[in-house]
């Protein structure tokens, strides 16, 4: 999982199995799991704000370690943005800003 250059590059090919950790930016509809890490490292200068600021905003919205997350909806164009269930609330975000959220998937995709 070190190759994080393009969040959507191998979206179609990747078949994460149980216990696999993926960035939330690569998750597809139906993927669910637990957030195990929220970093501040991917694509600095690509978010319009500093990485640490993006990280704090994600944390403030409840993207914290231990939170349950499930992808509910995807946008029409390039499956972006995504709407996720985050614990008991619903949040929309762009894939670009979701890359630093690492999710431990519950089970492989059907």
């Amino acid at each position, binding site marked *: 999982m070190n190759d994080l250059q393009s969040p959507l590059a191998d979206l179609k090919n990747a078949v994460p199995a149980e216990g696999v950790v993926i960035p939330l930016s690569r998750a597809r509809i139906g993927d669910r799991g637990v957030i195990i890490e*929220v970093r*501040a490292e991917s694509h600095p*200068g*690509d*978010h*319009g*704000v500093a990485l*640490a600021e*993006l*990280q*704090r*905003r*994600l*944390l*403030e*919205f*409840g993207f*914290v*370690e*231990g939170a349950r997350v499930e992808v*509910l*909806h*995807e*946008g*029409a*164009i*390039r499956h*972006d*943005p995504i*709407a996720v269930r985050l*614990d*008991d*609330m*619903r*949040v*929309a*975000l*762009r894939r*670009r*800003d979701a890359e630093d959220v690492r999710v431990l998937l519950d089970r492989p995709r059907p």
Partner: protein
Amino acid sequence: MTDAAQSAPLGGGSRNKETTGAQATRLAPARVALVGNPNSGKTALFNALTGSRQKVANYAGVTVERKEGHVQTADGRTLSVLDLPGTYSLRARSPDEVVTRDAVLGKLAGEESPDVLICVADATNLRLVLRLILELKQVGRPMVLALNMYDIAQRQGLRIDLEGLARELGCPIVTTVATRKRGIAELVGKVDDMILTGAVAGTNAWREPDAGQIRHAHREAQRILKAYVRPPERPDTLTGKVDAVLLHPIAGLAILLGLLFLMFQGVFTWAGPAQDLISNGFAALGGLIGQALPDGLLKSFLVDGVIAGVGSVLVFLPQILILFFFILLLEDFGYMARAAFLMDRIMGGAGLHGRAFIPLLSSFACAIPGIMATRVIDNKRDRLTTILVAPLMTCSARIPVYTLIISAFIPDRKVWGGMSLQGLTMFGLYAAGIASALLVSLITRKIFWRGAAEPFLMELPAYKAPDPENVARNLLLRARIFLTRAGVIIFPLMVAVWVLSTFPSAPAGSAGPAIDYSFAGMIGHAVQPLLAPIGFNWQMTVALVPGFAAREVAVAALGTVYAIGDGAGGGTLGSILAGHWSLATGLSFLAWYVFAPQCASTLGVVKRETNSWLWPAVMLVYMTALAYLAAFIVYQTAAALGGA
């Protein structure tokens, strides 16, 4: 405060140091501020508390709306209630959130710090607000927690240990249902208790949290939730089901387009009769006064200046009300966040934020509420881009101009199997506005600020049935804001225009039209050579001068120029224009109006929203340049094809 203390018989002492006995005779009402997450029903609670005793203004120096109201306690004292903008954190990221933070911290210029905070929470969605409460606790101000939407929580079978939670948080809790006015008296009572017992603010220990502290606060919130809140037995499944349709990549977009279509139908069809009523009413009033008064300056001032001026503002009220009715309804329902989700990628292609969708939509009614609505966009650059392109959206003030010119120059016939050519032209003008807005924002993003767009993080609130009272109250509020802000600017301009086109009056026995001798005539003649390459005659340039007051004024001004100019001209204005202008000139005038910044009010609002003359100047220059270019191309092309 000192003045009041000296003149009042019971006066003496600063009120914050007063103790229980003297509290009842306080000179100024105690101040209460409402804080909470967006979508927590904070505004509904504010309305339930204050009823119609509200005042809306701006905070000093910034453009954030300041809503204040009053509420009576059980024993008749008055509390002043301030509705602060919704926020997830005291770490402010937008001008609105800065106001909330500074107000809570007591650092807001021109504002005294609140005596008691009411933290408003959606009882069904406590996680994020608990973190905000923990932050507010650090500020040390006396606080009451209002668990709002408690009826929904009960319906879902959500159990909250109120006593335990109150003990844990160290503040009293009141359950409320703002939309049904439940729990309001109790909430006021609790706040009043705090004031009467002289609860004073502790020391402020709040500092901007770093990532580690936010994580820690979340763990705390999680622990509190686990200890005092039992998850709902019947969680809301409706929102998920509705979202499956409304957020569907294809069906969702189709529904959004359908809604937009319905909105435009509403704005342009349903508003028609009311608008006719208003304009006919003012025309009749003008006629009555015209008959009652002798000819002369006073009559001309009242009929052509005052009544026509007020009428030109009021005539847009029906459209603005209908548009805001839809927007408020959809907002209350929880749809607006979904619309931003659906539109984000599409708007993002043009360098716009998903949230720019709502302001740009409002701009179809009028750019002024649209530009004011850009406050929902956190990032300054995203907001500026939206402000700059908002006036390119075809506002309703262009409609009278478009309608007049189209009816005069575009033949009323069917093309391509039953489509009206006039309707198609109207559609084309709208499309040109939208396309140019997207293009300008793309160019702005590429040239002026190349940085990536602001993160797009947005809560999708649970759907709720809109509260009719809330919608009605906000609708009235919007109407009031429009009338005062637009009226204050447009009306004096109309009077100024009347002065320009009346003085100096024509010399006795002169053969030429009276307006030819006025200031407006002079300006028109002076500017006309500049506008000759785009096919404008001097009557048009004269009409453009008052047209700067507001776009639709140009129609009245053309009427004035031609009616005054030609004496008692027979026929409608449209037929007069068709007789005086070439087709190329008519089309050129339409093209001009797609782009021209013919609206002083818009420029004024941009100045206020950006706190600088730079951006209105940029807007004036770029829009005028675009208008000239478009009119030039259209006129020269049409003339070359034989339309001159």
